[in-house]
């Protein structure tokens, strides 16, 4: 029962609000698990999204999200002063739209921070007003040299 309610809820999404056109189609592979289901997405006459080919609820959710607005976790490094290494690995604490990744990297590359840093420290708040923070992936102690 729960599944069908969720499915109904998902079908209420209006794809037109995401810049999709009626009849627009896309074929892609689900990456949630190694089954690698071949998904096909299509915008129906009312702007609803039809996903075919999924084998589970997670696949349906991934397919819908991936078709309407693909999102990725941002992973990169940034310059750090006085650390045991010259660069610090960082990541976004949530996924952000895929088409914002390069813009986000440009912002991050403008920063230079200073050691010491602890894993999970927020380095940049609310990146590009997306409601996403950039956080440190590890501790970075001060270099003794």
């Amino acid at each position, binding site marked *: 029962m729960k599944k069908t309610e969720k499915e109904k809820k998902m079908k209420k999404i209006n794809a037109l609000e995401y810049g999709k056109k009626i009849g627009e189609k896309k074929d*892609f*592979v689900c*990456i949630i698990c*190694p*089954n*690698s289901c071949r998904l096909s997405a299509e915008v129906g006459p009312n702007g609803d999204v039809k996903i075919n080919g999924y084998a589970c609820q997670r696949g349906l959710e991934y397919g819908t999200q991936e078709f309407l607005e*693909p999102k*990725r*976790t941002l*992973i*990169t*490094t940034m*310059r750090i002063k006085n650390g*045991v*290494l*010259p*660069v610090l*690995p960082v*990541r976004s604490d949530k996924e952000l739209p*895929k088409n914002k*990744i*390069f813009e986000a*990297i440009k912002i991050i590359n403008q920063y230079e921070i200073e050691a010491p840093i602890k*894993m999970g420290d927020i380095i940049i708040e609310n990146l590009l007003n997306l409601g996403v923070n950039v956080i440190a*992936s*590890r*501790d970075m102690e001060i270099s003794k040299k």
Partner: protein
Amino acid sequence: MNSVTENSEPKLNYYETDVAIIGGGPAGLAAALSAYKENVKVIIIERDFELGGILQQCIHNGFGLRYFKQELTGPEYAQKFINEIKKTNIKVLLNTMVIDLTADKKITALNSEIGLIKIKAKSVVLCMGCRERTRGAINVPGTRPAGIYSAGMVQRLINMEGYIPGKRVVILGSGDIGLIMARRLTLEGIQVVCVAEILPYCAGLVRNRVQCLEDYNIPLLLSHTITAIRGKNRVEEVVISQVDDRWLPIKGTEKVFKCDTVLFSVGLIPENEISLKAGVILDRTNGPAVNEYLETNISGIFASGNVLQVHDLVDWVTIESEKAGKNAAEYAKGIERPSKLMTPIKTIPNKNVGYILPQRIEYVDKEKLVQFSMRPRFPDKNVVVQFISKNNVFYSKKLSHVIPSEMINLTVNLDIAKLSDSIEVNIVPSE
């Protein structure tokens, strides 16, 4: 006999320990913590300036889904273990390279500041990981200019040392490191011209192909390989040719790609030089052949992680190493095992099984749950994994798909009385 002792040469750095862990990467960290929980003295010997091993350069996410039930980056996964180590009194020797190991568990190591170190351990866990195959290992013809790297080396240069290796890159090999580096280079503003793969399918995980190549429109050339590298001082171009089903280049298919850098992502080799010094026998995995305690042929020397078998998920390295660490601690404490079989039971990888671990079963338990890991030779769908002994399929498991890049882990209950001296393992189509 080793003549160096604490008394005869007081200046020498000498340690006695219950368990010595060689290597402070993901395997060593897990093995050390698990041994420590058994209330024994533990030493980790690590050649780098910090713990964490390869995880520190694998800054991408996707680690820990099984073990921590959350998606972590490599450094985060490592940090969680390092933080646990800091709470213990496990002795950590950094910048220390093990140069010798004997069958009676004497370790010789070098440290750039304090010099020679000798360690006497009751048991040892080999956690040295693996290293990359290079251009030389696959005999790519051409000149020898600057700009030729292994993929993992560039990963370290960019992610830890802050260097950019070039501007236009061709990657050979579609294993996970190759795919992840294609994305990483792209994000750093470097153009990835293409990824060439000699196999007719992508060697890495599907999620990596989608998220690393397709996201950035990087071409993947299947059944292709580099047949020449050109350039005098710096790489100027590579020639890529299509290959036939025997991996031989097809004449007339050569294409030239301009680039200044070539990355090789062509496989990993377990690093077992130290193991060999102790007399450890290696299997077709290039790692030690072990029994169900993850113990090598040398009593009290155990192995886990990539030095044992090249893993695709660090979570399994952790799970395997926790077992090896616990077993090494119990060995050091002298805890007795169940009675030993007269003849060990050998496991034999057969139809579409590339290898299987453990390679032998040596002890009789009442409840004999053994964790097996294996890889198929080629991808297949709707198969069944069969364990056969005395012409009887005593265990079978259906799988919807198998691919060489994904290790298969199965826990099997063995009834020793019903087995002969060998177990044959097949992956065959299910009916």
